[in-house]
């Protein structure tokens, strides 16, 4: 356990010291995954179907605020959907606009959750999200996770119906519109997941705030088990008995990730190095405020216990120095 704490402290110290590089790098990796997910699965618009576009956009968005990066990512996805018709891209843009109007007006800093949720969905471990947000935030932030889930299922539905959307080139535009809207309004699986995620988020939030021992661990375990059971029952009731091994495996991995997350985040007093400038009547100040935890980090010290051996060596050194007529310090 001590080794784990040591590793944790080292990682935190590394992040604190190199925050200026670590933060954009993490953002870059997340955005790159999201952009590549769109590029490989939804690259319907030939004019922008070039691998350099997602690469350049992920580099550029890594240095801007996450809210703006999420908007650019959304527009890139909409541009790709335009290849299937204006209707599909339009429905997607309306979804984004709705989420901005109703939620992101209040919480612009939660944009990364909308990007992270579809990425984790793609990997098969979206069940991490409601538990992790319940642990670290209030139930309000679950809205970002729910929006990310809706975006993922919409895009998944569009991918599954690409043939119908491409074939209905000559058909009525309302057919395309209807197919696109169906992916949100008539997607039972999506609404099941959205409902369960919201419920789990609230449950985890309530349990981890209880004044009991190991509240965080209990919250993760209860959240993980209840989530798995609810989705399983929901799938069976709704007549969708597929993907169950993936669901069970994904839930187990998600709970494991949440335990690691809890270990890393719990009682973590994260303080970063601050660089500030100010002035008074006499001076200009350029201050670099370093958190005490970094300064106090001890370096390893080697202490020799075998004193007799060390003493003997010292005596030999002194004798040689006397013979050579030099200062014994020069021999060290």
């Amino acid at each position, binding site marked *: 356990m001590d080794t784990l704490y040591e590793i944790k402290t080292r990682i935190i110290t590394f992040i604190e010291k190199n925050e200026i590089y670590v933060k954009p790098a993490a953002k870059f990796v997340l955005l790159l995954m999201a952009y590549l997910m769109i590029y490989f699965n939804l690259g319907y618009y030939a004019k922008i179907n070039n691998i350099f576009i997602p690469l350049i956009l992920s580099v550029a968005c890594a240095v801007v605020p996450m809210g703006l990066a999420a908007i650019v990512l959304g527009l890139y996805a909409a541009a790709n959907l335009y290849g299937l018709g204006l209707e599909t891209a339009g429905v997607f843009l*309306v979804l984004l606009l*709705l989420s901005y*109007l*109703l939620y992101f007006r209040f919480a612009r800093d939660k944009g990364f959750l909308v990007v992270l949720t579809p990425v984790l969905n793609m990997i098969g471990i979206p069940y991490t999200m409601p538990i992790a947000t319940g642990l670290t935030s209030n139930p309000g932030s679950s809205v970002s996770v729910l929006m990310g889930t809706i975006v993922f299922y919409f895009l998944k539905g569009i991918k599954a119906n690409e043939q119908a959307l491409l074939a209905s080139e000559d058909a009525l535009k309302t057919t395309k519109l*209807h197919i696109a809207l*169906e992916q949100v*309004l008539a997607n039972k699986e999506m609404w099941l997941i959205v409902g369960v995620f919201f419920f789990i988020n609230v449950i985890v939030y309530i349990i981890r705030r209880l004044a009991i021992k190991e509240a965080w661990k209990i919250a993760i375990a209860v959240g993980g088990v209840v989530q798995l059971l609810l989705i399983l029952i929901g799938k069976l009731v709704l007549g969708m008995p597929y993907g169950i091994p993936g669901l069970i495996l994904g839930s187990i991995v998600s709970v494991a990730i949440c335990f690691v997350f809890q270990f890393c985040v719990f009682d973590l007093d994260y303080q970063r190095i*601050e660089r500030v400038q100010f002035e008074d009547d006499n001076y200009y100040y350029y201050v670099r*405020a370093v958190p005490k935890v970094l300064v106090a980090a001890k370096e390893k010290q080697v202490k020799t216990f075998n004193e007799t051996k060390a003493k003997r060596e010292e005596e030999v050194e002194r004798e040689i120095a006397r013979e050579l007529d030099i200062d014994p310090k020069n021999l060290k």
Partner: protein
Amino acid sequence: MVNEEKVRLMTKLAVFEENKGKKTIPIGDYYRSDFISKNLLLGFITGTIAYFLLFAIWAVYQGEKLVQRLLALDFGHIIFLVIVFYGIFMVLYLTICYLVGDYRYRRSVKSLKSYKKALKRLENM
């Protein structure tokens, strides 16, 4: 001669201004009622736009059924439903806007109190 204590205090204040203060300090310029009213007004505009977007989505999705109702000259019933749902939606949404605004204002006032205290201490140094 640099006054170390003063530098320490000024650094803390500057760090606050650079981070949390960016959102908090502007809220301090408002009275509580003005801040919440502004939030509600913005909520009313965005909520109305969002409701009609949602209505448009529903109308397009329900296409045929809606046309049948319109053909049956059931205008009154449809308009009544649209207005009732608009009312319910806005009451819910504006309540959330009110609660969020109130919570933010109270939280900002709390941190601004200590900020102002620190500023006064700096002035007296």
